[in-house]
């Protein structure tokens, strides 16, 4: 019972963070549309940058956390790590969908095409499908221990792919722009644009934390509830 109460508390705090994040997102839209200059060459579509990059950041961060938690699970065999890995993978998929829809919406007016089968875009899509497979695997396996063990291996494979996705713009010829903030040298953006990007990154990160906390809390509560139900069923059967 105390576990369920603690899980509910984590979920409710997560929901508060999500609510705050969504209100702040409205502020980011206002900041990006009204108080950030229009890029000279790309025009208005460049402002998609302020949601596309933070969504990509959150997706890759969430998938990295999935891989780390999966590795730790295989070492420590703590079911909370498996639940955390599952939560981050699901939230990462949600941010991936934002990344994979806003990207083509930016690409069409700037590159003249919705999609280009170049290294960055293709490997990002492969990463998305890998974690879609992770979700499918979890749904297919019934035994919790087996499910946690098998999905942890897939989670670690995803972690291996994350830095590769980031480095594709250096390793291959690609139409995708090179990093302008996450790079060894100073960010190559005017302050007005950098300020909006950093604010958006902060808001998206708050949303990521809120979503993961809520999913983790609800997942734990459901595990406990299912176990309680099974135990009740066994008791009635005796």
């Amino acid at each position: 019972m105390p576990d369920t109460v603690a899980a509910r508390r984590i979920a409710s705090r997560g929901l508060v963070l999500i609510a705050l994040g969504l209100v702040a997102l409205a502020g980011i839209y206002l900041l990006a549309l009204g108080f950030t200059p229009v890029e000279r060459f790309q025009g208005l579509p460049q402002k998609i940058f302020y949601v596309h990059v933070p969504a990509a950041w959150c997706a890759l961060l969430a998938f990295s956390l999935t891989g780390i938690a999966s590795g730790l699970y295989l070492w420590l065999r703590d079911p909370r790590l498996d639940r955390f890995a599952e939560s981050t993978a699901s939230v990462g998929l949600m941010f991936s969908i934002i990344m994979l829809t806003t990207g083509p919406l930016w690409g069409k007016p700037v590159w003249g095409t919705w999609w280009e089968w170049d290294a960055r875009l293709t490997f990002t899509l492969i990463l998305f499908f890998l974690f879609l497979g992770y979700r499918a695997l979890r749904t297919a396996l019934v035994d919790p221990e087996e499910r946690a063990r098998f999905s942890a291996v897939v989670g670690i494979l995803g972690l291996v792919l994350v830095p590769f996705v980031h480095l594709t713009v250096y390793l291959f010829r690609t139409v995708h722009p090179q990093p302008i903030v996450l790079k060894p040298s100073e960010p190559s953006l005017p302050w007005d644009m950098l300020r909006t990007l950093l604010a958006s990154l902060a808001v998206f990160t708050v949303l990521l934390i809120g979503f993961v906390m809520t999913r983790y809390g609800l997942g734990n509560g459901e595990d406990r509830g299912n176990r309680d139900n099974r135990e009740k069923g066994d008791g009635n059967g005796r």
Partner: protein
Amino acid sequence: MGVDVLPVSNAGYLIAAYVVTAVILVGYAVVLWRRYKRANRE
């Protein structure tokens, strides 16, 4: 710095991207909120 006067060309892509982002985030929040309410009722 005041509000810029923005050119309207290609504004549809920007609006679509911002709407899609908001719909996905709010939609996911609503799904989790409903699951939370349901879990609390049980």
